[in-house]
Each structure stands twice: as structure tokens, then as C-alpha cells.
């Protein structure tokens, strides 16, 4: 009787050990598989993060480029805006108007038409035949020669 119990215990223990071993093996394999998958995913995440960083870097480079371009353009526009101020600085318009009334009248009327035309061109108006055929900025429009399509003049 005792032998039977001992045998049963031994068989039970051996069976338990074998089962535990099998279970341990299966669980470990499953964990290895999951961890491998996780590792792959994490590697992918790192690559994704690197791609996003690269994209941001490119965006910042673009920002710097556009900012630089705008600053240069603003400097050019300010310089252009000073042209009239410089012209009028050493000029007594009232005195000139008294002494050369017809020519000053003609000049300010032409200047007004030209200045108005500058606004029209800036708003997207199509260029006239005369403007298209202009050989240089001054011929194009004395008030805004820099708008001439073949412009190289900044003042």
C-alpha cells in the first residue's frame, strides 16, 4: 500500500516537473516572441522619431531662409521708400512752384498718375504695352522703377 502511495507521489512529482518544465518553456517562448515584437516596434518608434526630427530640422531651415529673405526684402523696400524723401529733402517745392509753375504742375500731375499706377501694379493689374516695352525701370515708372519686370534697380 505504501509502495503505491510512494509510486503515485513519484509519478505525480515527475509529471509535475515535466509539466512545469513544458509550461516554463512555452511561457518563456511566448515572452521572447513578445519582447522581440516590442523591440521591433521600439526600433520603428526610434526611426519614426528620427524622421520627425529630420522633418522639423528642415522646417527650421526653411524658416531661417524665409526670415532672411523677408529681412532683405524689407531693407530693400525701406531703401526704395527713402528715394522720394531724399528727393524732396533739398527741394523747396513752394518756391519751385512759384518760379516754375507750369513745369512743376506738370511734374506733380505726372508723379501722381505714376504713383497711382504703382498701386495698380501692386494690386495685380496687367502691364500696359508701354510698360511691357520699357527698356529700364525709369522708363517703366519713375515712381516705382523697382517694379519693372526686368528690374535690377533697387533704388
Amino acid at each position: 500500500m505504501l509502495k503505491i502511495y510512494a509510486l503515485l507521489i513519484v509519478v505525480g512529482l515527475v509529471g509535475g516537473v515535466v509539466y512545469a518544465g513544458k509550461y516554463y518553456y512555452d511561457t518563456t517562448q511566448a515572452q521572447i516572441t513578445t519582447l522581440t515584437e516590442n523591440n521591433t516596434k521600439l526600433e520603428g518608434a526610434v526611426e519614426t522619431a528620427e524622421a520627425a526630427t529630420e522633418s522639423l530640422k528642415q522646417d527650421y531651415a526653411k524658416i531661417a531662409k524665409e526670415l532672411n529673405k523677408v529681412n532683405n526684402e524689407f531693407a530693400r523696400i525701406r531703401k526704395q521708400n527713402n528715394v522720394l524723401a531724399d528727393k524732396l529733402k533739398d527741394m523747396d517745392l513752394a518756391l519751385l512752384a512759384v518760379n516754375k509753375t507750369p513745369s512743376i504742375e506738370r511734374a506733380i500731375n505726372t508723379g501722381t498718375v505714376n504713383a497711382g499706377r504703382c498701386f495698380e501694379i501692386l494690386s495685380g493689374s496687367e502691364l500696359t504695352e508701354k510698360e511691357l516695352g520699357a527698356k529700364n525701370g525709369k522708363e517703366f515708372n519713375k515712381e516705382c522703377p523697382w517694379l519693372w519686370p526686368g528690374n535690377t534697380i533697387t533704388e
Partner: protein
Amino acid sequence: MVKSLTRNVLGCGLAILLLSSCSSFQTVDPVVISTKPLDRPELILPPTDQLTMRDVEWVIITEENYEYHVNTTKAEGRPVAFFALTGDGYANLGLNFSDIRAYVQQQKTIIAAYEAYYKDSEEVINSANDQLKELDGKKLGISE
């Protein structure tokens, strides 16, 4: 008797074995990473109205010619009233217009810069999204 005992022992042994096995359960939760590129809707705006400037005629009135202009205006049947500017006032008006023109040019420059930046950025974003899609595909391939 022996059979019953054997059955009991085996049954208890099995139950103990199963219960003890439960305690060794260890699970590793899989990491879930999802990336989803978003498409930015395109902003389409109408063009601005084109300007057509109205005629403005300047008349210079001096001591010598004011009578002539007064008489001409009267002869044309228009009320004799002139909106006058001094030389400095005229110069300031011209400078003000010049400032406004510069301001318009600056605004155009800013709009052009925004346009250039967002168009270029869109290209960068699209290429980054393509890269992400590619990576997602790669990951899926391995996981499966």
C-alpha cells in the same frame, strides 16, 4: 478502497499542480504604437481686388495765377473752392503715399514668404508621412 485512495491522491495532486502553475503566470504586455499622418485641408482664398486709380488733377495756385483759376472755375460753372496744400503739405502727402506703398510691398513680401514656407513644408511633411507609412508597413511585416 485502494482505487478510491488512488483517485483522491491523483485528483488532489492534479489540482495542486494546476493551482501552483497559475502562480507562475507572467505576461508581458505588447507595446502598441500607432502613427497616423493628418492631411491638412488646402486653404483656397480669392484674389484681392485690382485697384483702378481715379484721376486727380493738381493745380498750382500762386499770386500770379489765382485770378485766372478763379475766373476759369467760375466760367465752367463750378463753385470756386480749392482744396489747398502748402509745399510742405504736398511733400508730406507724397511721402505718406510712399509709406503706404512700402507697407503694401512689405505685406506682399510676408504673404509670399508664408506661401513659400507652407508649400515647401507641405512637401517635407508629405515626405515624412511617406517615411512613416513605410516604417509602419515594415513594422507590421515583422510583427506578423
